């Protein structure tokens, strides 16, 4: 009877140990998995968010908020990126605009990606030369915030107005080259008063198209 008890004890001890060891092993596996998935690489996400935010708002790369300057953004270099967004320094980074890769450093596989909706603007130049008389008017075909006026030396024009607001005035006649900045929220009509002149009007309207800016940061 005592032998029987002892045997039974030994058997159940073995079963108990096996159960405990397997439960411990299972627990360790699950804990390891949980710890691995808890590592969310906050540095990557922060870097990607910061770089995307800086690219769409920095003076160096934009015309205005969320409108990228095509020539500035196409010359983006790795040094520019580090200067704009210090959290990105020493990490792999890729910047894509539309379907085109603007910049790639290292080989970012996975990592954090932030997308921003932007417009890409390009300045186009429209130049025309015309003779204006007293009371002459010119409506610019596209809205713009920058117009360059060049008057000949024989100019008799005394006042130039944009939508009724005085831009240039000289009682002796406006001569030379001037840059004026009308509002880009309304169509601009230039009017000339005081005499006749030969004038070159060069307007630089912005042409925009939509695109998606995609910033990936890894490592």
């Amino acid at each position, binding site marked *: 009877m005592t032998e029987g008890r002892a045997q039974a004890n030994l058997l159940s001890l073995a079963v108990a140990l096996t*159960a405990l060891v397997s439960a411990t092993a299972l*627990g360790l596996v699950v804990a390891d998995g949980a710890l691995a998935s808890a590592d969310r690489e906050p540095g990557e996400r922060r870097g990607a968010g910061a770089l995307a935010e800086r690219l769409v708002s920095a003076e160096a790369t934009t015309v205005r908020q969320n409108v990228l300057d095509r020539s500035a953004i196409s010359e983006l270099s790795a040094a520019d990126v580090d200067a704009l967004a210090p959290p990105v320094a020493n990490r792999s980074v890729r910047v894509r605009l539309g379907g085109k890769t603007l910049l790639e450093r290292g080989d970012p596989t996975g990592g954090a990606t932030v997308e921003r909706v932007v417009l890409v603007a390009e300045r186009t130049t429209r130049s025309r030369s015309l003779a204006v008389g007293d009371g002459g008017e010119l409506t610019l075909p596209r809205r713009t915030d920058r117009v360059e006026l060049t008057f000949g030396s024989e100019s008799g024009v005394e006042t130039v107005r944009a939508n009724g607001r005085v831009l240039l005035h000289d009682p002796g006649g406006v001569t030379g080259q001037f840059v004026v900045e009308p509002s880009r929220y309304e169509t601009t009509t230039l009017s000339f008063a005081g005499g006749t002149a030969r004038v070159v009007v060069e307007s630089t309207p912005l042409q925009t198209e939509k695109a998606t800016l995609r910033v990936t940061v890894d490592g």
Partner: protein
Amino acid sequence: MAEADRGQLSLTMVEAGIGVLLLFAATATFALGLPAVGADEAQLDAYAEDAGTVLSREPPRHEGLTRLSEVTRSGSAFERERAALSHRVERILPGNLMYRVVTPHGAVGFPRPPDAPTGRATVPTVGGRVTIWVWYA
């Protein structure tokens, strides 16, 4: 004798069972999972914010200061501009997004799903607040 046998066997197994339960309790705290990162919502908020910024800086089609203040001016201005506004929002946002733009005079876009993660941005204009909602289609 029978009682003694039962007692000996079950005591060890009960102890082992309690031990296993304790270990499972610890395991369960790991297996319960972690709260979501919230990256989806952050990205959707960025989309909505960008759409609001782009629209609010755009020149109006007819009158008003900007495109958004134009649609909040009056009910008739909103009716006139609603097709152009929804067309413009559709053009600006990436193709995999749905949107709803709510103005004081009405809304354009799709009905908002009650359970999907959404991003939201609000742009104050002279005629009232314009709220833009976006979510993944």
